[in-house]
């Protein structure tokens, strides 16, 4: 694809803004603008150029150039481009204009930068999102002077009242296992049977992974750390990290390694979607379906173990390639097993969708209109269920996805059934992808010969995980990343729940929450403070729900 006219177009836009710089490397455009021009540029990119907002990254660059920096990462999916917009921020008074009123999708990542780096955003309400309320003020974990093993002495505040004063009835969902078995808290305000408002409090399992990756581990170790960001789609994170570093360091990865990565990624997508379909059936009370889907999934887990050495957390990915090869015998076995999966699943899905209760409860519930989906830059099956035709595998092909053909299922209804069907179709597509890849598997090495990673290079990579796109951003340092930012798909999808849950029957709420296939551990990533006490909700002045 010839992208030069598009590049020229972007260059023109950047020049019209004035006093900015424009560089282009591979599929990434780097733009540096003055802080006061940021909003203008964001508006043009997000609404005129129809770019999605991937995430924003705050970086403490004081040891490098004496400034803080904020990177807004946009994605022009139709033209296959990442657009990184950088602003320098004064280290003494780190204030930068907020863009959330123009780009609603930037809401959380701005708050995260405020929490973790102390970057203030003008023109919006700032409150703590990621850090627990008991975390001392003025200590910013991602600033370079804060050691990674810093442990604050914490005083537990405990409140009496549960929930905020509100004239509506409150139904708490969570914090234990609201959908999948992970901690997250939703507060639903109801009038009769209808949900009128939703409050969300998450980040209970923020584990400081980014800080660990920047301080304690070496480049190759981070692969394994990244794999543990998520218990279901960990390999996507590992590959995404490796791709970002490879892009930054310009490492050529052998074709065979890229194929093996793609094969394992698709195996992971199949098992993840099957897991979700099972859980959805379980949430709907159809446990027979749940059991049978998981019975079929077991074969996929066996394939994963056969190919990688482990049922989950495969541990075969490194920067520069993979660690485990696929031989002819395994190839044959995988294809045989996948054929059984395909046949069994087809039969089972046919039966499942003919269960009248199941169909009725999926149809027309949890609707996310296309316009809202676009505004929030939602990703993955949630986007594809709402008519947004975006898939990183096709739009910005990585690993071996440019070598094969596949369909991207898109439904425009935006309800739970649409998201259900997108996932079902994707499972069958994935099976066909794995077969194609195994068939075309080229000969050769599986590891790059030399791996040298220069300092202070940037890389952005996106990988289509089962739940949507993972985005990893890296600035290389000496022997380990200088800054490593992870954006998981659920991060973009949770804000959409507000729209989906509003004006719905309360009974459908658990299914709707489950319908985005939330993966909270991915989303959270940082500090846990143990106190051995029960958590209680306390109201605070800002009207934000906090934990004590």
């Amino acid at each position, binding site marked *: 694809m010839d992208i030069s006219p598009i590049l020229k177009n972007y260059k023109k836009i950047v020049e019209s803004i004035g006093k900015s710089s424009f560089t282009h490397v591979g599929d990434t455009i780097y733009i540096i603008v003055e802080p006061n021009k940021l909003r203008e540029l964001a508006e043009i990119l997000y609404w005129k150029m129809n770019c999605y907002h991937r995430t924003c990254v705050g970086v403490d660059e004081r040891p490098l150039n004496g400034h803080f920096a904020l990177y807004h990462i946009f994605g022009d999916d139709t033209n296959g481009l990442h657009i990184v917009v950088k602003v320098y921020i004064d280290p003494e008074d780190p204030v930068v204009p907020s863009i959330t009123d123009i780009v609603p999708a930037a809401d959380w990542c701005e708050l995260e930068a405020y929490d973790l780096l102390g970057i203030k955003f003008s023109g919006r309400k700032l409150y703590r999102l990621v850090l627990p309320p008991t975390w001392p003020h003025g200590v910013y974990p991602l600033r370079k002077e804060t050691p990674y093993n810093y442990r604050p002495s914490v005083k537990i505040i405990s409140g009496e009242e549960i929930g905020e004063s509100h004239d509506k009835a409150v139904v708490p969902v969570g914090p234990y296992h609201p959908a999948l078995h992970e901690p997250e808290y939703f507060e639903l305000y109801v009038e009769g049977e209808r949900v009128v408002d939703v409050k969300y409090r998450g980040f209970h399992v923020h584990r400081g992974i980014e800080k660990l990756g920047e301080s304690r581990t070496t480049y190759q170790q981070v692969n*394994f750390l990244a794999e543990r960001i998520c218990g279901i789609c960990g390999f996507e994170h590992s590959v995404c990290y490796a791709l970002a570093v490879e892009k930054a360091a310009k490492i050529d990865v052998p074709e065979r390694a890229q194929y093996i990565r793609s094969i394992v990624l698709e195996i992971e997508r199949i098992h993840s979607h099957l897991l979700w379909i099972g859980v959805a059936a379980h949430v709907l009370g159809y446990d027979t379906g749940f059991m*049978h889907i998981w019975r079929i999934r077991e074969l996929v887990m066996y394939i994963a*173990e056969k190919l990688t050495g*482990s049922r989950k957390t495969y541990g075969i990915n490194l920067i520069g390639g993979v660690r485990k090869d696929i031989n002819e015998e395994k190839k044959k076995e995988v294809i045989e097993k996948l054929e059984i999966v395909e046949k069994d699943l087809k039969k089972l899905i046919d*039966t499942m969708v003919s269960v009248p209760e199941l169909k009725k409860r999926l149809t027309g519930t949890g609707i996310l209109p296309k316009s809202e989906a676009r505004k929030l830059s939602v990703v993955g099956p949630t986007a594809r269920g709402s008519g947004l035709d975006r898939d990183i595998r096709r739009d910005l092909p990585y690993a071996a996805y440019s070598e094969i053909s596949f369909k991207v299922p898109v439904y425009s209804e935006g309800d739970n059934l649409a998201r259900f069907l997108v996932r079902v179709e994707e499972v069958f597509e994935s099976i066909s992808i794995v077969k194609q890849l195994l068939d075309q598997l080229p000969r050769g090495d599986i590891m790059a010969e030399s791996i040298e990673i220069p300092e202070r290079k940037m890389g952005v990579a996106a990988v289509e995980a089962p739940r949507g796109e993972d985005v990893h951003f890296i600035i290389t340092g000496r022997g380990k990343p200088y800054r490593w930012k992870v954006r998981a798909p659920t991060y973009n999808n949770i804000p959409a729940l507000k729209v989906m849950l509003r004006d719905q029957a309360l009974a459908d709420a658990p299914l709707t929450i489950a319908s985005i296939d939330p993966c909270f551990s991915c989303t959270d990533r940082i500090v846990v403070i143990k106190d051995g006490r029960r958590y209680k909700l306390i109201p605070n002045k800002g009207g934000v729900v906090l934990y004590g």
Partner: protein
Amino acid sequence: MGKLGFIKILVIAGEAGRVTRRYPFKPETLVSEDFRGRIEFDETKCIGCGACVNACPPNALELVDKGDGTLLLKYFIGRCIFCWRCIDVCPTGAITGTRDFELATNDVSDLYEVVVHERAECSECGGKYSTIRQKEYVVEAVPITESYIDKCPDCRKNKLLRALERRRGGVYE
């Protein structure tokens, strides 16, 4: 499919039959031969170089200097993620992987494995450095090192500095 299509689940269930196993009452292998489990050390091959410690992502492997002339390579299974990176990097092939994963125990000491190494003594200052095994390994691989390997890295460095000073006519204390 008609209104009663969902009843087909009975046919599916009948075909699938019973898929659960009588583990652990019936002994059977649950994992394939590709499975990565616990690692094992060959104490006669380990030289205490610490390559595995550097590679280990979760710090399951540690080198501990006891201060009494011994160096311990400690493996704590509780932290191990079974990635086998240590096996990749071990220069002597002292580590092998097993398929063992049933590691539950009520005695935590079962989860530790320790290889004890004797440290080498510097012929000049008498300080401890490296391990005797590693010294032997290096000499075997690169025989020329035999002339200076008896000294610890500090003494070697000082010796070099002294030689340089002499050549430039300076005085070295």
